[in-house]
């Protein structure tokens, strides 16, 4: 598994296809986050913007290897394990990106509640921001997993499905991502730091299920 992870990570890094989503994320943050704004509000925005970026990273990893090369890897390691490695690498990339963004945003934001009256400690705020970013990274990976090979093969369907899936996951009532981001925004209004454990558990379960379905389907769909 280590060899597969190294191979997939090298594929992602060397392909340089990670650059567009990272630039898009930086642009999201540049537009939505300014220094001196309340920290929890900014962290909510940072986490929410990570979700489509994580989904995009999954699409990059899932389409990075040409089908013939994927067959060679699949024969050597099992197609399910090969695809699992690819999804784990996408998740790690999204989680790293999210963690870096959370730390940066925490540093430049004002440690205050929305009305700028109450002080909010930076370190617990960053912890809450990391948890919410993790929820969004997980669900972004779930969306990307369910809207790419082996479930959807043609880009004509996969890309719109991915965009729609990412949007709905952010706005639909009952979505763990929406619950987690909302808890940050409300925490900012009430000057409390939320600990979104329930959304995190739900996101982890949903993503694990999505990954299990995709890996099981790798040997059942045409290349």
């Amino acid at each position, binding site marked *: 598994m280590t*060899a597969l992870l190294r191979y997939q990570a090298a594929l992602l890094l060397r392909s340089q296809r990670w650059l567009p989503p990272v630039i898009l994320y930086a642009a999201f943050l540049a537009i939505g986050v300014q220094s001196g704004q309340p920290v929890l509000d900014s962290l909510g925005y940072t986490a929410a913007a990570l979700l489509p970026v994580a989904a995009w990273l999954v699409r990059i990893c899932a389409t990075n290897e040409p089908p013939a090369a994927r*067959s*060679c890897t699949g024969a050597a390691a099992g197609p399910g394990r090969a695809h699992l490695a690819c999804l784990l690498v996408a998740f790690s990339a999204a989680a790293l990106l999210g963690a870096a963004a959370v730390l940066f945003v925490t540093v430049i934001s004002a440690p205050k509640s929305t009305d700028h009256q109450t002080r909010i400690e930076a370190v617990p705020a960053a912890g809450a921001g990391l948890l919410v970013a993790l929820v969004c990274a997980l669900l972004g990976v779930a969306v990307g997993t369910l809207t790419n090979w082996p479930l959807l093969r043609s880009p004509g369907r996969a890309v719109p499905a991915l965009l729609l899936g990412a949007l709905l996951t952010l706005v639909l009532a009952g979505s763990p991502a929406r619950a987690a981001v909302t808890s940050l925004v409300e925490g900012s209004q009430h000057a409390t730091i939320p600990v979104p454990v329930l959304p995190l558990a739900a996101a982890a379960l949903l993503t694990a299920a999505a990954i299990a379905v995709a890996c099981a389907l790798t040997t059942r769909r045409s290349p």
Partner: protein
Amino acid sequence: MGRELLLSLEGVGRRYGFRGPWILRGVDLAVAPGALIRVEGANGTGKSTLLRVLAGIDAPTEGRMSGRPRTAYVPERFPAALPFTAAEYLTHLGAVHGLDRPAAARAADDWLERFGAAEYARTPMAQLSKGSSQKVAVAQALLAEPELLVLDEAWSGLDADAREELERVVVERTAAGAGVVFVDHDPRRLTGVPDATYAVVEGGLNLRTSTGTSGDVGVGPAVVVEARGPSGAQVPDDVVKLAADVEETGGGSHRFSVAEAGSDALLRALLGARPPWHVVSVGPSWLGPGPAESPEPEATSERDAESAPGMTSELEVERS
């Protein structure tokens, strides 16, 4: 043979989608260690799908598949669109096949050199020609000495030297106990060597030819090897399997006829036997009726009498 099968398919069917047409149906196939199996069939009959099922890349829609040996697969067309040099890609794949990284890097260089692509080891894959890419695909499959080698027109695009080398490697792998299943559009590919040839017809699998040992059927260039074993030694099993014909010439000497692709493997088996055999002479020959019309050997061994008579002829070996 008494050895356990590497892989067996029972009543295997495969179709894509819930209502797609059946591409394979009711396929039974067993791959024993050391077996060399050729699969034939017209374009679009499901040969590639069968190979993908054997390689574990496609799961059967119905039926049972048992056994999962360490497998390597070579596709017909290998894309160059990978952001690595050939050596980097092969090192990654060697590690995926289970080698540690230094061993993978060494194996990568060795196999590239064997296929005449050593000069491309540091070339980005995107700049490789089709043939050189195919050499990388072949090398990828051989890095870690797989137990099952699945070749889907692996020879296409290779130059003549590399094609011959791949034939030799295939015989070598089977001599080492690996199973090999291949598809190739060239009917002369590995002539006389496969243990069995199957044809995919309308999704089913028909046995075309089958032999107990390699090389009893077929026509093609061959090599006659004369070797002397230690006193009282039996001919090693893998040598018997490789040879198309074994003939005892007295005084502990034997004369082996072997298809040209298998001559290296046969010599290696003789010299590597414990205790090793002494090779007295090596000469060219011809299997089956062909350009080198020569008389039947006078002394036929018991084993030769069992196999189809008249299928094997050989040149007399020059002896001093």
